[in-house]
């Protein structure tokens, strides 16, 4: 008992911090999602009406579809690229340090600058990349007109921006695999692909799941790439859930529906990542024994 009273004052700041910045605001958002609220008017209780309104809004459903599409496309492609690059770096590359800096550089670029840069490079009228594609006789990325092209562009941009994160996790995990295991596999007659399948992948498993889980969560809340690139247009066709939420809260000042959107977003991202969460739990439990 004495020990607890001695420990509490040391733990209290952490608890207070978590309570004030996570728990209480979360409950406030739940409360807000059950009310109709805007500037200059007191909040009125509306029950689950905000949730129904959001879930039956075609714009939200389209935004949700776009988000899921970007998450699935971008996160998995990014994982494949990150894994490939990690293995390439681990196999020994000339000028590895310089290349490492080049690969990590996008992570140091502000998202605003990155989008401005990409907008210029892919400008349909004067963009250097567009000009090069045209010169090569290849079709241009008509992102300012064609919604599917805009989504591809957003996907590629988000991969470019976040690839260093996935890469560094996988590269660190790959370097941690003892060389002896590869040597033993080679002595047992394993070919490079067998070593990859039987040694690399199982031992990289936890790192892959962690990278995927983080990227699922980050990618689900994708905002700046879309907002700065297309603002959700043309005609709201490239809107994602975070942009929908922003519009509800800060353009339309409908705080109730914005709060409901936020909770739907949390639940949808958890649902999407459920498989990986269970996989991670299984791995953690396995390591504990």
């Amino acid at each position: 008992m004495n020990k607890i009273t001695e420990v509490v004052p040391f733990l209290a700041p952490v608890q207070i911090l978590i309570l004030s910045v996570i728990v209480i605001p979360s409950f406030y958002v739940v409360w807000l999602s059950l009310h109709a609220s805007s500037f200059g008017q007191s909040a009125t209780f509306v029950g689950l009406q905000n949730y129904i309104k959001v879930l039956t809004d075609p714009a939200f459903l389209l935004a949700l579809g776009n988000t899921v599409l970007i998450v699935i496309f971008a996160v998995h492609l990014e994982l494949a690229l990150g894994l490939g690059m990690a293995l390439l770096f681990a196999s020994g590359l000339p000028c590895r340090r310089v290349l490492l800096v080049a690969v990590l550089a996008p992570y140091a670029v502000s998202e605003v600058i990155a989008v401005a840069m990409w907008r210029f490079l892919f400008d349909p009228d004067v963009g250097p990349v567009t000009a090069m594609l045209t010169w090569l006789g290849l079709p241009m990325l008509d992102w300012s007109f064609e919604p599917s092209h805009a989504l591809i562009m957003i996907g590629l941009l988000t991969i470019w921006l976040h690839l260093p994160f996935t890469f560094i996790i996988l590269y660190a995990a790959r370097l941690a695999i003892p060389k002896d295991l590869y040597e033993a596999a080679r002595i047992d007659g394993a070919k490079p692909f067998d070593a990859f399948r039987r040694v690399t992948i199982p031992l990289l498993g936890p790192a892959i799941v962690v990278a995927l889980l983080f990227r699922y969560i980050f990618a689900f809340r994708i905002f700046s790439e879309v907002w700065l690139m297309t603002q959700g247009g043309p005609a709201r066709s490239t809107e994602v859930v975070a942009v929908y939420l922003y519009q509800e809260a800060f353009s339309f000042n409908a705080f109730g529906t914005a709060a409901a959107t936020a909770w739907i977003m949390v639940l949808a991202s958890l649902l999407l990542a459920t498989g990986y969460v269970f996989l991670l739990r299984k791995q953690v439990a396995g390591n504990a024994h």
Partner: protein
Amino acid sequence: MSDKSLTNITRRGFLGTAMGGAAMLAAGPSFAAGKTLNVLSHKVHQTVLGTGDGDLLKDWRATNDADVVWTTFDSNPLQDRLFREASLSATDFNVGYIVDNRPTKQIAAMFEPLDAYLKKDAIEDFGDIAPGLVQGMTVDGRLIGIPVRHATQGLFYNEALLEEQGITAPPTTLEELVEQAQKLTFTSKAGTPVAGMVLASDLAVFPVMFARAFGGDFINAKFELLPNPEAMEKGLTILRKMFEGGALPRSYATTKNDDQVTWLQQGRAAFTVLPFARFAQLNNKEQSKYPGKIKAIEFPISAGLKGKMPMSSIVEAWGMVIPANSKDKDLSWKFIKEVSSKRATLGMAKNGNGPVRVSTYADQSFAANSPVAAVEAAVLKNARGAFPPFPEAARAQSIFLEEVQLAVLGRKEVKEAVASIATRVKPLLQA
């Protein structure tokens, strides 16, 4: 010789020096102003008041022993922050800038009614401030803001590009504008691909201007939605044809307001619609490839209505408000009074602000240096906002723009898009 090192600090010495220093600072003269006035605005509202020797508030600061601290945002985040501050129990912001399509009954209730202040400590020649702008800041008969800036839209054109294509005069009707824009979609002598016209797709201003050229509107002052749907259809049909013909750039759907400025400055577009106050920026030698060649006229009405009715261009006005929950409201009023004075209005106009006083346009020192002053004053007489304020105005604008984009990009028939605007916006007006 002493053993004491000069760097040795004793506790007594430290405390004594600290107390002595504090006492000296307390007894000495104060270098900062006695009061601080916090203002929430757009950056442009601050810059037009000048700096250094051209600071229009220099005397006011000295007289009132007050400093002005500006917090600036872009338009939408500014309104959001202002309303957020005004809805708290108390705010540190003394004055805020509000745009005239935002004060609904609920929003107006968060700001101090200014009629009593005006009666007690009148603004110099208040009747000189354009009555239409004052009306925009009056909600349910209560004056909540003092107009400070207007942005009246005009048609800008690059005279050099017009000459290059053998066009000797700017358009006088909307039909001529469309024809010229099509002719001006070419590659210039400088090798730059030129679009006939560049317009942002995220503002209701432009499609509404095209509809008004045919006598139509989006939502008029009487809150009538699409009072003349055929006019809106005609306006959108023209925009669609311009897009199909390349006179509006391929990137129309992602073009922003700032792009319009750079496209015109770089000779990438021949026409655009912008506030007259942009004239100086568009002709700035350091920024523009065509200084002195970018001119402005009134946006032309359609041939069928020319001479029968005036073109009603769009004007957006800003006003200064005092949050009801702020402190030192008398100081806020003094600031508003100073910024609204004839002297400050003239000074701000010379710095590129759309003047809210009629007398400013008559002032020779302003008119002589502003080639668009006369045309702007004439356009302002018939100008009105894009739509009136109502609680769901922002959502209504978003729906309107969505349908306009679908129609212009050819994803929906124009008639269908206009019908859809009517169906989707109507419930918002009723709410």
